[in-house]
């Protein structure tokens, strides 16, 4: 193999796998699936920063999308993010695994073509997947920080990956202890600065949560509903061991149900166990810490699936502030998935150490292809389940109409439900896109209806205004005075959507605009002013964003210095 090919083999392989999964998503349009919602242009609104709505679950993800999706069309941004996520995940895992090129490519396959990535992609959790992609890079940076004493690379990656709270926690908990823990070459001052920077970069979500007037207590039902589930052979434990077990049956692959997938997952885990000792000897602190996190995360994922109805487990989620971040237990197998992906190729190399070169090569290639054989239906947008679509022109007309109105007031989205099924989107379930589409804050039903054992349960929302509106609709009272009192002037009725529960009484709210599938109504009288602002929080957000740039520059300088000092390691 020519040296240029060799040098770029890992990147090329990661690009190829990414293309196999995402190629159909690159056609013009927007992929709208469960929580994955992008719109042509998103306007920066207070709720994007965690001000005035429910808990800051997608902070600062939505704020950054709003900032970028002005100059960059939303569909381009979505494609860039998804492709970058997949390529960075593959190349990062390969670089972290190290060793011969084929071992790196096998690690890339195991991490990129994984049940974890498939489940989260189908759920639409792209913010978490962004952190998943940066996790191996953050650990590489932490490894370098231990050696050089410069923690800026680690801090930058922890900040760049903190699009959602769980993503920020995943990166910080994995990388920071390695970078600044015992044995690190970093000085005390440098360690403190690194930790402070990571805290600042994560402040947009944790500071917003601290300042939110919304109850910090998570609905204990959340663990029962969002705990890990068996999506394949081997029950909950077998599923989470394989990186699967996502709670939503609509976000799993059919191939996960085969014994073959279960068997291959066991083979990979056995290989990882065989390679663990060798890896531990070479990268002792990081392997140890990743193993601890992997086992704890795996244990919690399993508990969330088998003990979600028990009081003590629910107390862990609903008791302490921020405990709600634990309710989707399968998320926390991320460390386990990475550990197995980077260790299994080492195990195979150890197992086949006495074999001929050609057989060793064949087995390494087989390991690189094994994830594709185990989960073939992840290919091609999960066999067509993820397809880009175009928004009907009426959606842009509605945005322009609402933006053009001069009177103050927010918007409410009806029918009163969180999720939609549009004919133009293949009737896929998707989170209501209206809050991201309009230029004003949209109040929507943030209670999440989920089918559990054949019955529908609702996991509690936390936006106080949504609660007031929901109670008014349930009681059958005229909505106009309630909306006016909560600062809402506009009502958007999505007329192509089914009507769950009672029909809202819209007496006194005339239609002012109508398009295919959409209707805009306006309260003609006065509406109470609702001033959603928090200057302190905005200052913190701006500070975090501004500080990310110099930290990035410092990190880049550190990378260049390390390359000059140890060129062989960085081209491996």
């Amino acid at each position, binding site marked *: 193999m020519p040296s240029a090919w060799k040098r770029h083999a890992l990147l090329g392989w990661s690009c190829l796998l990414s293309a196999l999964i995402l190629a159909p998503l690159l056609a013009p349009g927007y992929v709208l699936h469960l929580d994955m919602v992008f719109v042509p242009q998103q306007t920066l609104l207070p709720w994007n920063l965690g001000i005035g709505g429910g808990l800051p679950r997608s902070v600062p993800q939505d704020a950054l999308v709003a900032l970028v999706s002005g100059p960059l069309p939303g569909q381009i941004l979505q494609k860039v993010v998804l492709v970058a996520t997949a390529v960075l995940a593959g190349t990062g895992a390969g670089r972290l695994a190290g060793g011969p090129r084929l071992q790196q490519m096998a690690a890339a396959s195991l991490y990129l073509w994984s049940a974890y990535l498939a489940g989260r992609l189908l759920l639409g959790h792209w913010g978490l997947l962004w952190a998943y992609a940066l996790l191996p890079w953050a650990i590489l940076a932490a490894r370098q920080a231990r050696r050089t004493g410069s923690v800026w690379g680690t801090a930058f990656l922890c900040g760049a990956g903190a699009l959602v709270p769980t993503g920020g926690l995943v990166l910080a908990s994995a990388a920071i202890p390695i970078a600044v823990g015992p044995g690190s070459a970093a000085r005390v001052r440098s360690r403190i600065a690194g930790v402070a920077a990571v805290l600042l970069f994560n402040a947009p979500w944790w500071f917003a949560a601290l300042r939110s007037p919304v109850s910090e207590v998570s609905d204990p039902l959340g663990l029962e509903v969002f705990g890990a589930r068996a999506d394949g052979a081997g029950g909950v434990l077998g599923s989470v061991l394989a990186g699967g077990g996502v709670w939503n049956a609509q976000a799993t692959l*059919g191939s996960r149900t085969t014994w073959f997938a279960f068997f291959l997952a066991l083979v990979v885990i056995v290989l990882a166990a065989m390679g663990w000792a060798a890896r531990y000897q070479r990268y002792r602190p990081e392997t140890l810490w990743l193993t601890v996190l992997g086992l704890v995360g795996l244990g919690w994922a399993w508990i969330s699936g088998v003990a979600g109805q028990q009081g003590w487990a629910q107390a862990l989620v609903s008791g302490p502030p921020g405990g709600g971040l634990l309710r989707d237990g399968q998320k926390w197998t991320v460390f386990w998935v990475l550990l197995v992906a980077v260790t299994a190729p080492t195990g195979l190399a150890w197992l086949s150490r006495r074999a001929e070169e050609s057989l060793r090569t064949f087995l390494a290639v087989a390991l690189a292809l094994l994830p594709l054989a185990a989960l073939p239906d992840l290919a091609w947008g999960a066999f067509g389940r993820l397809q880009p679509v175009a928004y009907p022109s009426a959606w842009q007309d509605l945005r322009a109409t609402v933006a053009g109105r001069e009177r103050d007031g927010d918007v409410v989205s009806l029918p009163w439900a969180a*999720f*939609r099924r549009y004919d133009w989107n293949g009737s896929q*379930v998707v989170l209501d896109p209206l809050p991201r589409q309009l230029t004003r804050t949209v109040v929507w039903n943030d209670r*999440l209806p989920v089918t559990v054992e054949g019955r529908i349960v609702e996991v509690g929302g936390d936006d106080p205004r949504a609660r007031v509106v929901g109670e008014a609709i349930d009681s059958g009272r005229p909505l106009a005075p309630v909306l006016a009192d909560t600062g809402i002037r506009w009502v958007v009725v999505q007329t192509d959507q*089914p009507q*769950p529960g009672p029909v809202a009484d819209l007496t006194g709210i005339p239609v002012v605009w109508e398009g295919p599938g959409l209707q805009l109504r306006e309260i003609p009288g006065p509406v109470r002013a609702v001033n959603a602002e928090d200057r302190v929080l905005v200052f913190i957000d701006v500070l975090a964003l501004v500080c990310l740039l110099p930290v990035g520059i410092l990190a880049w300088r550190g990378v260049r210095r390390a390359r000059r000092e140890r060129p062989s390691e960085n081209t491996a």
Partner: protein
Amino acid sequence: MGGPAGAIIAAVVGAILAVGAAFGIVSSQTATPAPVDKPFIVYGDS
């Protein structure tokens, strides 16, 4: 491990991967959850 053994291992591993992938492809067509009935659109089936 000599030539014949290597070839046998290669054939067995290749066959396992190919047959298993075929099962996965078939399962992807049969194990996809049924659409949720309207009018209540749910987030998912837990």
